[in-house]
């Protein structure tokens, strides 16, 4: 089990009172799964990702990452995190941005260079290593940020709406690439999104969430084949799963 959450709770104190960001979350994620978290804003999907990453501390229940508390997992550099924005350091070239975690972890120069080259090739940014971030398009920047998260070879990849700011064509392309990457590397991926087709297309498991309080309303295991060309999105199977996700989302809103 890579992630195991048991009755997980997280409350924020705000000026308007207590906000229940996460309420009694139970979830298990196995190795090699591709899990999407989908729900309207405020449903706690990003918060849950941040709890896994030890960027937020839960106020109740328990969570284990690789069988350890999140803090230990973070200290052991167990995961790579991809943010909503590329979050590249503007004064570093693409290659030096990708090598940032490697520098911090104290890898040798040669090792850094070798890995950076491999990552640049993996995300298809060959020839752009010497460019600064502003010289690249948004999609390419996000690819660089994924390469950076993969560079130190953690088995778990946490992605917080990584393609949310990109246009549909670029997004389709990157979804395809991400799926190939996942198959090639066998990593466990937690992927936050608010796009139903994206969630269904990518995932082996879809976690539907709803807000106030943030909770899980449905967990859908997808039985789409592993091989997924983009036009799989037109098949009845795909549409059926998408329909179930849509219903799950609507259910969460019933109390509004």
């Amino acid at each position, binding site marked *: 089990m890579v992630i195991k959450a048991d009755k997980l709770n997280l409350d924020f104190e705000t000026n308007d009172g207590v906000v229940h960001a996460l309420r009694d979350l139970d979830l298990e994620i196995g190795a090699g799964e591709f899990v999407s978290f989908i729900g309207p804003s405020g449903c706690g999907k990003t918060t849950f990702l941040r709890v896994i990453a030890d960027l937020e501390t839960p106020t109740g229940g328990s969570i284990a990452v690789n069988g350890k508390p999140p803090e230990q997992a*973070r200290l052991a550099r167990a995961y*790579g*995190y991809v943010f909503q924005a590329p979050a590249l350091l503007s004064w570093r070239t693409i290659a030096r941005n990708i090598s940032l975690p490697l520098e911090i972890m104290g890898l040798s120069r040669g090792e850094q260079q070798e890995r950076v080259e491999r990552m640049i090739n993996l995300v298809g940014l060959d020839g752009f290593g010497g460019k*600064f971030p*502003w010289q690249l398009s948004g999609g390419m920047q996000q690819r660089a940020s994924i390469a950076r998260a993969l560079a130190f070879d953690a088995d778990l990849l946490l992605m917080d709406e990584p393609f949310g700011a990109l246009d549909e064509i670029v997004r389709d392309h990157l979804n395809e690439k991400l799926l190939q990457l996942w198959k090639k590397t066998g990593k466990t991926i937690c992927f936050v999104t608010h796009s139903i087709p994206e969630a269904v297309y990518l995932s082996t498991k879809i976690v539907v969430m709803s807000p106030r309080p943030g909770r899980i309303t449905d967990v859908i295991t997808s039985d789409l084949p592993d091989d997924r060309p983009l036009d799989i999105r037109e098949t009845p199977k795909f549409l059926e799963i998408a329909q179930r996700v849509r219903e799950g989302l609507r259910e969460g809103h019933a109390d509004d």
Partner: protein
Amino acid sequence: MTDMLRQKLLPVLTIVAAIAVIWYGFTVYLNAPWQLDQYEKTATEWSMTDLVRDTMAHDRPVLPAPHQVVAEIWKTTVKKKVTSKRSLIYHSWITLSSTLLGFVMGTFTGMMLAIFIVENRAMDKSLMPWIITSQTIPILAIAPMIIVVLNAVGLSGLLPKALISTYLSFFPIAVGMVKGLRSPDPMLIDLMRTYNCSRWQLFFTLRLPSSVPYLFTSMKIAIAISLVGAIVGELPTGAVAGLGARLLSGSYYGQTIQIWSALLTAATLAALLVIAVNIAAQITHRMMGVPK
């Protein structure tokens, strides 16, 4: 090249021309009363042309004409040996050396203070009010004290003057640098946290590079007020050397042309120093990949 001339030089020259016109106007207007008095005393017939010509040729005018000041600057820079006590270059160098020393010390002090403040909560609470208070004391009041006290402990010459520049210049550096060190996006700080990086790695890989643009903006202010500090520091030293000394001795003897030429030299010096910082900023920014 012609584009650069049109975009940069032309606006500057237009303003210079406008200032010259206004300046000449005031020269005639301010020097006229004394001149008219002279005409009356000597019962001279005069025309408007005479008045304009004569008001621009006084030895100790209320306001010297621009060309008189330029002539004085020419006489005391190009025509004098650099080692001469009457050379403006000699005096400029005296002021410049304490400006630069004070600026370097001020930049260093400001940066160190900013690092302490950002890295230590107690420092943030205890130091910042004093830093702000330090700048509410008029420099003219504290400058002679610094000179006198340091002289009593055997320090004189360059260092006390430079310390006044330091006193003025550390402030914008400290304030700008604190803002710069705190400028990284929270997302980037989270990113560094996911790498389990140490405090110093966070500082050197993220905070320090983020502060560079803020630092250069502060340095532009700091170098200009360092020059002011150096000149103020020269006033109570008994007018030995430096642009401040030239100003003081000029005012003792009513040498307005000398005062104005020292003033213009100081202004030019300040402009050159700011330009130098600007060039350093541009080179650094280019190395850091900032788009033009």
